[in-house]
């Protein structure tokens, strides 16, 4: 028995030693595994930090773009060019790639690089190229240089991809053709910590002006190249009043454009009563290479409101309006000094305005009603146009109104479909009119229906 107990005791010691050895070995293995895992975690951390550095740099690059494809039907062939360019004289319907744009921004916080291209089947053009400096102290002011939107009104800076109607109003397409110009701009957008100043904003600058388009140089129309020694002054003082508790916002501003146009021709047509006559003839004056003033004043107002009670089904409502008036220097054919030949300049007082109502229905649908008026020559009425006694009054002096009705459907967060109908009415000219003015003795058949698909990212 004693022998037996000794044997059990010895065996117990042996097992204990074995168990202890096994336990040490397991601990060692666990420690090794832990060390290995720590190494792997450290490796992953290093790899993450390296990747993060690269990702942080890449995050500064922002790429966006959109494509607008559309089908349009006009009342007749060859109608005018305010619903996406003129129709060919042989067709009243067309498939069109209206805009194809790609924008790249490199945002380095205190500075930005901006470049936007327009690619069309006919070629590639530059739409935007800016160097922007943001001051780091108040985080309020920025200075931009390059090709950019003219800082005037609401419609110009409101992106073509955001516009609910397919095109900007006729007055903007005429007076501020292509929206862009080459210049230097100062902008102030006070932050939310700036007290009352946060509700106001300013942007304004100096621009090469429209002179680059007037055929006085070999500069390519649309590049905004400088051809004279004068600069345009353009600016807007705006406000944004959010009444969050009422879910109402009221925004607006006052804008000014003061520019000059270089004459490429000795003749200058000016209004004399209800006549548009060449002021060169009596007394004889040569106007070539002189500059003439082109001034525009504008006021704009936008309201945003969600109707109470009706709620999510109806959604937000926006009413927007603008009024522009001033003096344009154009050519006889219109108020745009953008002819390709060395056309004579013509001076006119003009007026234009629009009112639009945009209504959301749930998250998918929007409706838009837009009414705009453009009177390129406020000194005359339709009855004055077409009479030989009234000099060179022509199609460029005819007033137009447009009522647009549209429905928009948001297919998903990048695709928007638009059905829009422009009902265009022109002022009728004197029944004695002949030649190219003859069609204007009646309302032109120039209504346009547009079906557009837009993809934007």
């Amino acid at each position, binding site marked *: 028995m004693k022998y037996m107990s000794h044997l059990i005791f010895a065996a117990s010691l042996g097992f204990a030693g074995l168990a202890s050895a096994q336990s040490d070995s397991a601990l060692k293995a666990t420690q090794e595994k832990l060390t290995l895992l720590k190494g792997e975690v450290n490796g992953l951390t290093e790899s993450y930090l390296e990747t993060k550095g690269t990702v942080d740099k890449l995050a500064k690059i922002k790429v966006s773009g959109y494509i607008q494809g559309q089908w349009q039907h006009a009342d007749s062939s060859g109608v005018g060019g305010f619903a996406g360019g003129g129709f060919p004289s042989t067709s009243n319907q067309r498939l069109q790639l209206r805009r194809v744009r790609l924008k790249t921004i490199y945002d380095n916080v205190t500075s930005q690089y901006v470049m936007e291209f327009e690619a069309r089947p006919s070629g590639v053009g530059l739409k935007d190229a800016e160097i922007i400096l943001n001051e780091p102290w108040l*985080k309020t002011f920025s200075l931009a240089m390059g090709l950019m939107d003219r800082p005037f009104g609401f419609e110009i800076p409101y992106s073509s991809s*955001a516009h609910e109607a397919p095109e900007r109003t006729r007055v903007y397409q005429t007076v501020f053709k292509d929206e862009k110009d080459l210049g230097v701009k100062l902008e102030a957008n006070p*932050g*939310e*910590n700036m007290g009352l100043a*946060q509700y106001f904003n300013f942007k304004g600058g100096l621009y090469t002006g429209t002179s680059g388009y007037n055929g006085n140089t070999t500069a390519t129309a649309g590049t905004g190249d400088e051809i004279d020694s004068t600069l345009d002054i353009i600016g807007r003082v705006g406000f*944004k009043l*959010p009444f*969050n508790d009422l*879910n*109402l*916002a009221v925004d607006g501003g006052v804008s000014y454009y003061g520019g000059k146009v270089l004459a490429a021709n000795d003749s200058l047509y000016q209004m004399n009563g209800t006549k548009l006559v060449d002021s060169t003839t009596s007394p004889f004056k040569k106007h070539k290479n002189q500059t003439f003033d082109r001034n525009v004043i504008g006021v704009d107002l936008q309201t*945003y*409101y*969600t*109707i*109470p*009670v*009706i*709620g*999510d*089904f*109806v*959604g*937000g*409502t*926006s009413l927007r309006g603008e009024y522009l008036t001033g003096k344009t220097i154009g050519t006889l054919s219109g108020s745009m000094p953008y002819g390709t030949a060395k056309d004579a300049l013509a001076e006119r007082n003009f007026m234009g305005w629009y009112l639009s109502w*945009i*209504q*959301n229905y749930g*998250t*998918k649908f*929007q409706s838009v009603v837009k009414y705009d008026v453009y009177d390129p020559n406020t000194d005359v009425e339709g009855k004055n146009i077409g009479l030989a006694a009234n000099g060179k009054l022509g199609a460029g002096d005819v007033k137009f109104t447009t009522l647009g009705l549209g429905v928009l459907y*948001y297919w998903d*967060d990048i695709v928007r479909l638009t059905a829009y109908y422009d009902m265009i009415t022109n002022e009728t000219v004197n029944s004695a009119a002949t030649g190219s003015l003859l069609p204007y003795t009646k309302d032109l058949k120039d209504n346009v229906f547009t079906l557009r698909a837009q993809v934007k990212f």
Partner: protein
Amino acid sequence: MKIQKIAAALLLGALPLFSATTITVKGSDTMVILAQRWAEAYMSTHPDVTIQVTGGGSGVGISALINGATDICNASRPMKAAEREKLKTRFNSLGIEVKSAKDGLSVYLDENNPVSELTLDQIKDIYTGKIKNWKQVGGEDAKIVVYGRENSSGTYVYFRDFVLKGEDYTSSMQSLPGTAAVVNAVSKDKYGIGFGGAAYAKGIKFAKVKKDASSPAYEPNAETVKAGTYPITRYLYMYLKSRPTGELKNYIDWTLSPAGQEIVSKVGYFPIR
């Protein structure tokens, strides 16, 4: 007869489309537990309603609201003017803001850290990198390890705007994904400091915060947050594209009711009233 059967089958098949309501909620990580608790409680008494809750950060939630990808955006900071501009462009609305709870935005310290009080200026200086050593605020001679959130977080933005007065965070701050990760890091780091919602208080202590050097120090709790004496008190928000109707309105109303606000307290935040 056959046509009638097919029509009946189609009608029955289509019924669920009209009878079930799904509400999507996206945004603040600070609010994700609160939103989940609300959703669970509401769905238990409204079996015909499904509420899907995801986090991602206030910035992510606001982007989703602007893109129309969520019904409700949770945000631990007020929506910025630039974000409202985007809502205006897409929905012609400033968005509807619902204050759904209060939070004492808390400064976390390790339980073993001898420092227990900080002024707002000291917190600002620590997070902007002007104060780098605990000794400068009455603690041990050790480097301060600064933990914070990623820039998609509403807490990150709120803290920067209201505590740092718009200044940038120190480049040495370690950005972590979620308040829980910040709490976890501080709980394992004696010399760490972090910030986040008051509902995440496991294994750390709250720093008592003083408005300035001569003011009393307050810890975030129901009393100090309600009275507004805790200096970093904020609202937690729900944002909607436009005024809610139907089941969405019922749900929002319920979160603001005594039953919904009781869950706010249980989760660790503070009722709005």
